[in-house]
């Protein structure tokens, strides 16, 4: 038994070697900055890393590079999932140091930090009208609009409606879009917001925490690059603290505010009174 773990780890060596090589390549490329009109776009190595990672999944490589499946096959792919769960703890450890060390300043910014959690309402106000009035979507609107759907929200949707229902499929769809494009999208959104100079970098840093850990990492790293040296550490600390609060309270926000408000707005706009809408809990 005592050696089994070394054997299982050793079997996955190809996966880890590929990860190492991809990381070396993306870090050599480094961070790229360029201007499009008034906005400065920042592409962090993180984004290249993700795109290369997806391009190396077996489902994609079988289309253009069949022999690569011998290196990253289905079993190596399966081994990658727990690696995220485990590895993220070390990343969170470093973030936690930033949060802890700046706790005095975070407490000062506390009221803003807590109130910005209500930014969730913005998702509903932006998404529901377009979904109902322009795209003529049905009840999947409810699942798709009530929050930046990450794991806790998806769990909630599956418990309340079941993932096979219309609303559940909406939640599932947003969850998957977030998984595939979330980091890239948030990073680009953040660079546009910083360079248009509508908001202070600290406000954007707090907003960077609304989604998952990878969305937060992408957005905050981008904001940091475009801010002044003296603001950088606090930006990371604010983003990390905001993300921590979202993780802890997001589910309650959805239950008591997000879902009721989404349903109310959907009813108003679509004329569907949701009489036969099945919901549990």
């Amino acid at each position, binding site marked *: 038994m005592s050696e089994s*773990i*070394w054997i*299982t*780890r050793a079997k996955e060596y190809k996966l880890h070697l590929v*990860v190492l090589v991809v*990381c070396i390549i*993306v*870090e050599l*490329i*480094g*961070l790229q900055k360029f201007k499009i009109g008034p906005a400065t776009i920042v592409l962090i*190595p993180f984004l290249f*890393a*993700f795109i290369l*990672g997806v391009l190396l*999944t077996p489902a994609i490589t079988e289309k253009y590079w069949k022999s690569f499946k011998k290196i990253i096959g289905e079993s190596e792919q399966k081994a990658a*999932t*727990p690696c*995220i*769960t*485990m590895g*993220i*703890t*070390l*990343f*969170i*450890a*470093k973030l*936690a*140091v930033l949060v*802890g060390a700046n*706790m005095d300043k975070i407490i000062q910014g506390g009221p*803003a930090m807590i*109130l*910005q959690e209500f*930014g969730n*309402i*913005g*998702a509903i*106000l932006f*998404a529901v009208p377009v979904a109902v009035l322009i*795209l003529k*979507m049905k009840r999947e609107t409810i699942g*798709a*609009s009530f929050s930046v759907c990450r794991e806790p929200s998806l769990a909630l949707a599956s418990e309340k409606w079941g993932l096979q229902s219309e609303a559940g499929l909406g939640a*599932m*769809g*947003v969850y998957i879009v977030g*998984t595939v494009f979330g*980091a890239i*999208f*948030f990073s680009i959104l953040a660079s546009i917001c910083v360079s248009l100079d509508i908001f202070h970098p600290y*406000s*954007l840093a707090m*907003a*960077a925490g609304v*989604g998952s850990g*990878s*969305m937060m*990492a992408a957005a905050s790293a981008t904001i940091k690059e475009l801010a002044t040296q003296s603001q950088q550490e606090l930006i990371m600390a604010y983003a990390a603290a905001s993300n921590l609060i979202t993780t802890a309270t997001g589910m309650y926000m959805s239950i008591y505010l997000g879902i009721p408000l989404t349903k109310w707005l959907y009813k108003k706009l679509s004329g569907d009174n949701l009489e036969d809408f099945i919901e549990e809990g």
Partner: protein
Amino acid sequence: MTEKKNTSSISLRDWSTFLLLFAIISIVAQIFNFHHIFGIGTAKTANVWLMLKGYAVLYIGTIIGLICAKYIRIGWPVVIWVSMVLIVASLPWLPTHKFVTEITKPVALLPMASVLIVYAGIAIARAELKLFKEAGWKILIIACLTFTGSFFFSALISEIVLKAMGQI
């Protein structure tokens, strides 16, 4: 291994072994980040000895968090325990503050995040890619609006409150 609660199906030994490997890959990534060929590097140092010391402290903190999550069962997930341990250790009012913050400073966040996201990219399964295709362009638009709305409103609220309190 018999435990069923969320992440605990992974044994402590598996977890701690992988973190060693993960730390090594992250250190290599950071070295290349520092000695990048194109673009801009974000890491402040490529000194392996300084990085090792920083990683060692983070590693110990993480393991303490993992042990807490395993034995103190009050329903907190691993990430909350790990955060708690390191937040407390680095609080400015505690004597450990200076040691923990100084020694972990050489560890750059971004290269570590890159390593994680490569695993995440590779882990995106056939089923997810297929569902993504089927979910269609409408969901894609709505997802983008949901993200934008949430981000924009959060930033707006923060801006108003921070301004009102005279902090920016």
